[in-house]
């Protein structure tokens, strides 16, 4: 399915699934089953487009990202990137293609080697991908990258611990951009940063996208931030996409009861709005079972659940140029 039109997508993810083994608690860690962390996820992403990915903890957002990068094995489905089917690509060819897709992580402290100077950190991906040319070329590229992310070129000789969290995240972004990727996957890129710094990083990403035509897959918990940066937004619940729509359609008229509950739960930074606004609280989280029960995984908490919801899993269906997986909305 897709809500995008025209132009061939850069990334096409079709019905992918990822399962993790579940082991027993004894001394011998016997495999007792598996958990489907991602269960039939499909989406497309074009150049110069940002797809936001939101959903509760454990809903499979990071797993989806790692699967797209082929850092995890798929148990089903198909991924096409830049015209290539990368679903079953071998290591060597995948490494070459990975130049086109880079990732930045939540924790700017853990993801930079503490013993490397910034210059080396930025050169390393160039070396790995054989892009150094002569020595001077890579030095120039490092300066370019530092400038791109708003750091001065004097920082190249310093170590990661000499930088603040926001600066370290800029360095991670510079490193990801070193090889001129077409797709940048951002997994909670600002949630470890102070709000006063978050805006700097978000503006930087928006600006980079505009200047380079980068496609962004942007994972975050902060729904206001996702609205700010995304062109389209996908909402995940229990390993599935339950709703996918253009940004304004999703935020102004959420269809899925989970999306509605999610948006309602976000407190607005205005005491007058908040005293006037009631929020319908979701009931407690249900116990998680290893095998997802038949039926809609949200039905246990859904205020609008019907009988059919408990026995039949709703497929992701197109409705008015958007997609929703809910029995409240039948086929068009």
């Amino acid at each position, binding site marked *: 399915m897709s809500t995008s039109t025209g132009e061939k997508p850069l990334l096409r993810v079709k019905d992918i699934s990822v399962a993790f083994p579940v082991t027993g608690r004894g001394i011998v860690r016997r495999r007792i089953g598996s958990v489907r962390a991602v269960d039939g996820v499909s989406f497309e992403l074009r150049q110069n487009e940002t797809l936001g990915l939101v959903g*509760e*903890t454990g809903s499979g957002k990071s797993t989806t990202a790692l699967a797209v990068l082929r850092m995890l094995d798929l148990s089903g489905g198909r991924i096409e990137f830049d015209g290539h089917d990368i679903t079953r690509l071998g290591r060597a060819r995948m490494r070459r293609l990975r130049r086109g897709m880079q990732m930045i992580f939540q924790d700017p402290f853990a993801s930079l080697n503490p013993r490397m100077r910034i210059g080396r950190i930025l050169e390393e991906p160039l070396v790995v991908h054989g892009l150094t040319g002569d020595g001077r070329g890579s030095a120039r590229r490092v300066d370019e990258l530092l400038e791109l992310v708003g750091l001065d070129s004097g920082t190249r000789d310093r170590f990661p611990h000499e930088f*603040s*969290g*926001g*600066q370290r995240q800029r360095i991670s972004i510079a490193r990801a951009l070193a090889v001129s990727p077409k797709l940048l996957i951002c997994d909670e890129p600002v949630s470890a940063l*102070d*709000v*006063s*710094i*978050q*805006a*700097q990083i*978000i*503006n930087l990403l*928006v600006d980079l996208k505009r200047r380079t035509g980068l496609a962004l897959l942007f994972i975050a*918990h902060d*729904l*206001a*931030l996702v*609205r*700010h940066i995304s062109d389209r937004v996908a909402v995940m619940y229990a390993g599935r996409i339950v709703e996918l729509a253009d*940004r*304004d359609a999703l*935020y102004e008229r959420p269809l899925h009861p989970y999306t509605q*509950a*999610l*948006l309602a*739960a*976000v*407190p*607005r*930074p*205005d*005491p*007058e*709005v*908040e005293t006037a606004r009631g*929020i319908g*609280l*979701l009931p*407690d*989280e249900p116990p*998680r079972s290893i095998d997802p029960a038949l039926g809609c995984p949200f039905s246990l908490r859904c205020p609008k659940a019907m009988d059919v919801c408990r026995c039949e899993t709703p497929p992701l269906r197109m409705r008015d140029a958007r997609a929703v997986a809910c029995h409240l909305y039948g086929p068009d």
Partner: protein
Amino acid sequence: MATAADTPLLRVRDLTVEFVGRTSCLRAVDGVSFEVAEGETLAVVGESGSGKTATALALMRLLPAGKAQASASEVTFEGCDLMRLPESRMRELRGNRISMIFQDPMSAWNPALTIGKQVAEPIQCHELLSWPSALSRAEELLGSVRIPDPRSRSGQYPHQFSGGMRQRAMVAMALACRPRLVIADEPTTALDVTVQAQILNLLKDLTRQSGASLILVTHDLGVVARYADRVAIMYAGRIVESGSAREVYRQPGHPYTRGLLACVPRLDRPATGALTPIPGQPPSLNRLPSGCAFHPRCPHAMERCRRERPVLEHKGGQHWGACFVDFHR
């Protein structure tokens, strides 16, 4: 910063916390004064490292011994001077008259004890109940925070609870002995928004029912707007602005507060072009700028701001601010 004519539940004057290392001494909290009235919710907001947790731990007298020193000209809680109370009396107050909910719901639990036992312990200790009655009171409390099937759940261990359930059980434990003051240090930071709303609504309802006061440490301006009566904004170890939530949101006076409110995208406003970040970086405590610690990032900084440090002054109503620039421009 008086909030009411009658004596407040808690009054803090010039609280200072220093972390002493072998070679250095960091002043994490630098002369903080505030009050909390009976039944009031005070939110404390500020960036990472601004001294929010250090303030909370100082009030509870839970700062790491030997590493940190707290001093104050006054910390009065229910007429007692907390700074000068013997540790044995302090232990009676903790978990009983004042309790604390920590940021990380996992590390605050003992992994080897069942949830029920951990909730029952302070009840037995402070209310002098028999162990079986304390346990059944614990089950009741777990039910009151809507843990499903509290009888059997109370026999489970922390890892068998979801993050949200652990934090709900923490709320139950914190309120077990009907404290007058609950200090919640980022109680929902690690949780989903839907779970966050459940926990905070619960905390708010339960404190309202028992008339307890709440100090809510958070970095989420939405949470402040929804749950706080008053708010104190901290920057580099000091309170730079405080007031009723309405005053501060309608007319933020300190440039830092204005910056905070302007830099977050918001669901209640149309999506805009670029965000307006606060320039620069938060200062590190061992290299604090001269004068007002915010001046290097402040769009209105004047010569005076570089030389002199502004103190918290009354700006009308419940509104206080520490800034030389005309507060209600």
